């Protein structure tokens, strides 16, 4: 299977300020991601599983080019994404709960705005918009301001904006966090439909059931290090489900 994304020896070290140093025992730096390597194959859903503070979000932020790695490489189709940054960004869609849409604008306006920033032509924008708005049933609230939408509608709008430029690889940080069960199910179904379309997807989560339902392969991450990686079917067994495997690894992490 073709490797779409290669993460090689990725490390991110944050310099701490005087306040945050106290929390980290006076250390001047925090190593959020430590020599992390994994691959994501074309057309699969890859899950990064780990507790809060494990480095999942930092890893996704680096892959999405939001922040730069301290060291290591991220290759997209064999090319270093930082060597052709803008081209790489056009191929990546990133959705995280930290990034929000401006309440003042409508979904329709924001969709056009971001598609335009990603260099899409008006005709392409309209075609892509029709497909995505149909899929998420956005037409009936497309002219309402984001601030007036329900949580579920906002999530749909965010998904639509993430896909506005028709990215090849889609990164979701905690995709179902804070959603009600109905909207969460819609998002799960949507991710599977994207996979069916041949999109490559990376998700980060701490929800075992989500990984089990969606992911082809999973990487378990603690303290910025990848402790286990592989196809889900190879990691779980009849005796050990994903949760058991995870806690076995977690309890033995310092041994």
């Amino acid at each position, binding site marked *: 299977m073709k490797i779409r994304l290669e993460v090689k020896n990725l490390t991110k070290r944050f310099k701490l300020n005087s306040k945050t140093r106290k929390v980290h025992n006076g250390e001047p730096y925090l190593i959020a991601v430590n020599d992390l390597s994994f691959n994501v194959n074309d057309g699969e859903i890859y899950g990064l599983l780990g507790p809060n503070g494990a480095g999942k979000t930092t890893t996704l932020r680096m892959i999405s080019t*939001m922040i730069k790695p301290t060291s290591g490489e991220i290759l997209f189709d064999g090319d270093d994404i930082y060597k052709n940054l803008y081209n790489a960004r056009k191929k990546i869609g990133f959705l995280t709960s*930290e*990034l929000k849409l401006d*309440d003042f*604008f409508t979904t329709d*306006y924001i969709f056009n705005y*971001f598609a*335009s*920033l*990603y260099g899409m032509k008006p005709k392409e924008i309209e075609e892509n918009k029709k497909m995505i708005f149909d899929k998420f049933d956005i037409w009936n609230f497309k002219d309402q301001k984001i601030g007036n939408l329900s949580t579920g509608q906002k999530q749909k709008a965010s998904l639509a904006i993430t896909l506005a430029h028709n990215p090849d690889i889609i990164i979701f940080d905690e995709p179902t966090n804070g959603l009600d069960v109905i909207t969460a199910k819609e998002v799960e179904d949507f991710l599977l439909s994207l996979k069916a379309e041949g999109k490559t997807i990376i998700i980060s989560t701490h929800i075992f059931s989500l990984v089990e339902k969606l992911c082809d392969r999973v990487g378990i991450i603690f303290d910025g290090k990848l402790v286990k990686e592989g196809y889900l079917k190879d990691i779980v067994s009849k005796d050990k489900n994903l949760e058991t495997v995870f806690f076995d690894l977690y309890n033995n992490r310092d041994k």
Partner: protein
Amino acid sequence: MKNIITIFKKEMKRFFTDRRMLAALFLPGILIYVLYSVIGNVIGNTVNGSTVSNYNYSIVETNNYGDSSKQSKLDMYLKAALQTYEDTVEIKYINKSEVDAYKVDLKADKYQLIIDFDDSFELNVTSGIKSNINFYYNGASNESSFIYEATSSLIESAYGVYSVNISKDGTAINPNVSDKNVTFLKIISFILPMVLLSLLSSTCLSLAPESIAGEKERGTLGLVLIAPIKRSELAVAKVLALTVTCLVSGLTSFLGLVFSLPKMFNGIGNINFSFGPLEIVGLLFIILSLLILLITFASFVSSFAKSIKEASGFLGPLTGLIVVVGILSAFLNTTNIGYAFVPLLNSAACLSSVVSGTTSLAFVIITIVSNLFYSAVFAYLMIRMFNDENVMFNVH
């Protein structure tokens, strides 16, 4: 360039379709107009007293100032000049020796004004020799004060600057009537920079935190930061949109100023004030360059802050500084070019000097160039902030 235009359009849509934003943009201009007009009326009423056009006035005038033909010329002039009040003004001619007796009548409000000319007044003035006129009026009487103001100004405009002795109720004081305009202009040039700077800065200091720190706080900036655009493009588009928006606000303030100042000056009655084209162009460029400076500074500070509250906290002291600078500017000597390099102080001093008519072209030009230079520095620093992931994403 396409990305800058796209972001610029979005920012403009944000600013110009939000009612609260619109109010923040146009209120300063309206406030300037209303405030200055009201100030003009208040000062005008204070200086001129109440409107007294229906009162009767009696002026007693000494007639021993020399040549009788000159005397008749002056009388004719006074009568002609006072024709506005022809139904209410009566002029009586007395000898110098009678002045003291008439002072008693002046106190009793039987007469409202005594004009006592020096001997050979006309002859002296014609020969270029300064000569005195002693005005006696009753300061406790509105009618007396009013006719004194009107008459002294008429004589002043006929003869130019000369020494005038004024006595209220016979107590000799010696102010120079010709200082009245200067005093008034001093007051205005003192108030104007402070009020104008405060109103202009209030727009800049509210829009920049909302547009930059607000977007960071709400998490809406992140999506733009991962788009395939240069962060310098984002910074430039933001500064451009803020600058244009604040320029619109500045223009309304400027129009408010242009329309209200003549009203303010004319409200005083005898002071005819109008801006010449040079003053208008000078004021316009000073206000524009000052706005650009304020917006780039506020944008730089806002890009550093994590939230609107933090940005407002950082920018808060600037509001106090602006008031202090506004006051200080009234005491600055604009012949000292060094002040033209000091941000804020230079603009305030320029505004003050343009209004008081003591402006220096070199000072104005250096002020504008300095403002633009400092703006470029702050814009550069802001772009550095946009490129700094620690600042933009508050990672740790």
